[in-house]
């Protein structure tokens, strides 16, 4: 029994050393890549591309379900994006509130039977609308089918060769579309998808759909997520992109070549991780055909999203993410450890299986089991010390290093007090929060095994939304606007 517990202890400690050691290497690689990226920013020619009629036009797709609170402002900010030529396609996925009615009032929508491709199957369209005040806006009402289905519908309606999926409740910076499209501008033949960074909007000042003052959330839980996002985006995604095995482009903000998405059949509607699953499928499709391609992460362009501020919503979110990851990895298990798929198969997929999918279970076992075993005298105290060093101390260093990356790169939190606060949270990130998210992820694995489906509700305060909504006035616009009673 003693020997068995010691072996488990060694396995757990080895796991943490391997995980955090890998992230340490990632951090160093990311440091180098970000430094190079920043050195090149002064001559990135963003302003010139902004004026260029040769920039490829983009269709911005906005899947929306019951977004009446903020949809008008969201669309306003999307139409105001600085990009030479783009359109906005809002897909109301069977909304039961006044999402479409509010858009109709704000943008003078009229019914136009928009021609759509039949490239990807989706739930039937009920009605399509075009704005008279801004013909770049198209609104589609369809039967409910989920976010992936709404995106597939949007792809079929898109006029332009590139589509950018954006969540209805995220805020995109004014030139974010141009920055995320930069790899496409530079290498249009090879780049088939790019993604930008997601930052947390809680606590920021938002005016007319734009973040005008970056600040940390008041909520401790949300602030911990700020640190976590630094690790995920500035370390994780930068390196995976460099290794040509980026497996996730955030569904909140991703740019895709429409023909490539159509070629693989669009988003998979049977998963809650449709964003990651699409990216992996694109990788497979291109590699299996031996085509030269790139899928890139661009650390510049920012979209801002609301982070959960209560444990229940956080738990739901993390369980859903874990489920989505598991569904994606399982569906594409054939790429794992296969040289044919390059770094994706030989490095990324095994990493995600071991450290992101199964790893949380080992972590939870370690956090619970080792201290108990040491307290009961079953395990030598040196194992406890070793575990604390490997799991907690090394984790703290990584969080601080991620913070350092943010500091040397984009430095969006310029106030000294906030930097100090972030430092404190980076230290304490590994004393409770990380363990909690580990538990949520284990619960997500349980959900996966039980084949749970659905997104669940997220309690939102709404970022930058009007405190009071004006009453809906249903103007006749030449067609019926379906609103559930």
């Amino acid at each position, binding site marked *: 029994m003693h020997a068995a517990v010691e072996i488990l202890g060694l396995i757990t*400690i080895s796991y943490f050393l391997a995980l955090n050691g890998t992230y340490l290497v990632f951090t160093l690689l990311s440091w180098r890549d970000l430094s190079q990226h920043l050195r090149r920013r002064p001559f990135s020619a963003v302003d010139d*591309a902004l004026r260029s009629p040769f920039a490829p036009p983009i269709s911005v797709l906005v899947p929306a379900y019951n977004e009446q609170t903020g949809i008008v402002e969201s669309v306003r900010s999307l139409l105001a994006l600085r990009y030479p030529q783009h359109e906005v396609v809002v897909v109301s996925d069977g909304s039961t509130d006044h999402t479409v009615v509010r858009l109709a009032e704000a943008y003078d929508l009229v019914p136009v039977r928009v*021609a759509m491709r039949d490239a990807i199957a989706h739930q039937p369209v009920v009605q399509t609308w075009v704005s008279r005040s801004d013909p770049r806006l198209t609104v589609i009402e369809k039967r409910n089918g989920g976010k992936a289905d709404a995106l597939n519908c949007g792809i079929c309606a898109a006029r332009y060769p590139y589509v950018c999926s954006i969540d209805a409740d995220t805020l995109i910076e004014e030139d974010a579309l141009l920055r995320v499209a930069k790899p496409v501008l530079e290498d249009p033949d090879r780049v088939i998808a790019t993604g930008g960074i997601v930052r947390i909007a809680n606590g920021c000042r938002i005016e007319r759909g734009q973040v005008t003052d970056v600040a940390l959330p008041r909520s401790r839980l949300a602030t911990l997520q700020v640190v976590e996002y630094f690790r995920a985006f500035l370390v994780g995604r930068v390196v995976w992109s460099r290794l040509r095995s980026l497996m996730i482009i955030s569904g909140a903000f991703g740019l895709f070549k429409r023909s490539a998405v159509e070629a693989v059949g669009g988003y998979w509607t049977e998963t809650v991780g449709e964003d990651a699953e699409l990216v992996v499928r694109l990788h497979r499709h291109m590699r299996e055909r031996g085509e030269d391609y790139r899928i890139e992460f661009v650390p510049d362009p920012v979209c801002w999203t609301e982070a959960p501020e209560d444990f229940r919503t956080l738990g739901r979110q993390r369980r859903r993410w874990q489920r989505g990851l598991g569904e994606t990895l399982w569906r594409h298990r054939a790429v794992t450890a296969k040289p044919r798929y390059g770094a994706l198969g030989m490095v990324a997929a095994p990493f995600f299986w071991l450290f992101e999918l199964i790893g949380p279970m080992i972590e939870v076992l370690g956090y619970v089991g080792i201290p108990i075993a040491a307290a009961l005298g079953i395990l030598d105290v040196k194992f406890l010390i070793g575990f604390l060093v490997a799991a907690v101390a090394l984790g703290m260093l990584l969080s601080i290093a991620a913070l350092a990356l943010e*500091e040397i790169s984009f430095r969006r939190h310029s106030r000294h007090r906030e930097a100090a606060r972030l430092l404190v949270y980076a230290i304490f990130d590994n004393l409770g929060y990380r363990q909690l998210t580990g538990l949520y992820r284990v619960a997500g694995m349980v959900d996966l095994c039980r084949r749970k489906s659905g997104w669940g509700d997220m309690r939102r305060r709404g970022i930058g939304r009007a405190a009071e909504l004006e009453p809906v006035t249903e103007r006749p616009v030449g067609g019926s606007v379906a609103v559930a009673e």
Partner: protein
Amino acid sequence: MIELLPALAAALVLATLPLIAALLVRRIRVAYRERRRARLERRVEPLALRLVDGEDADPTAEPLGSGEGVALAEVLTRYAQVLNGTARARIAEFFERSGAVAEQERRLRSRRAWRRAIAAKTLGDMRSPAASGPLVSCLDDEDAAVRSTAARSLGNLGDLDAVEPLVNVLADGTAPHAVAGYALLELGSGAVPTLVGLLESEREEVRAVAVELIGRLGCARDAALLVECLDDDSAEVRARASRALGRLGAGPAVAKLRRALVEPVPFIRAAAAVGIGRAGDAESLDTLLEHARVDSFASARAAARAASEIAPQQVAEIGDADPSAAGPHLVEAADRIAWGLD
């Protein structure tokens, strides 16, 4: 292994504390540098304005303090991007006289690509025509960012000798289309004679670029030059010629555009439809309506749109009378006409 972990713990603490200290020092230094820069720019701004207004040909005749020279250069660089005419020429002259242009040209030979790229950008920002030659050489640089930046800067300088080199990089695909294409647009209608000469190039890529840019920079009288391009061997040239004629006015080319409307290549049909629509060629209406019903998506859409421009009333009636027979594109076109869209 377990025995080594306390040593690892000590190493982590030793690594973390200097890292935190370095971040703190960096933050203080960055804040100081930003304040200093703002202060210096405020101080040199009157000098810059005197130069731009022509009141002071050489504001550096009196020696500048530490950092003031750099600040003056930065302020003038910003002004150069928004000014034209003699004001801009004065700024360029200042940079040439002060040796800044020569210094940046020297940096174009740096071993580090990012330094070469920054130098290429700075030369463009300085707006000195003397930099044109070295920038053209940079279009052959091994680094993509250097080529792209050099293309951009050549557009800024407005030197028409750069037309053919820029067309070549576009044809070769060695600089981003959006950047190099825009640089050519910045050269303006003065580039058209060179572009017309390139219509005779043996390379179809060059001819295609030249056709596209004539369509954007030229005027109605240049349309006649593009008519022959509708018979080019290259499908890409024919398609771009169709679109270009749509912009310039397809009057002399309508007969050939009608033939292009029935080409086997879909994107040529779509481009031809655009040109025909803008020319208002009523004879093509039946063909357009047929294409709008049965052709591939992009071609059908273009055909429906063109038909709407030529005969909106008729399209509206067709779309409303029998939507299933009319097809989705004519139905959409009919709705747009009804609501006064597009």
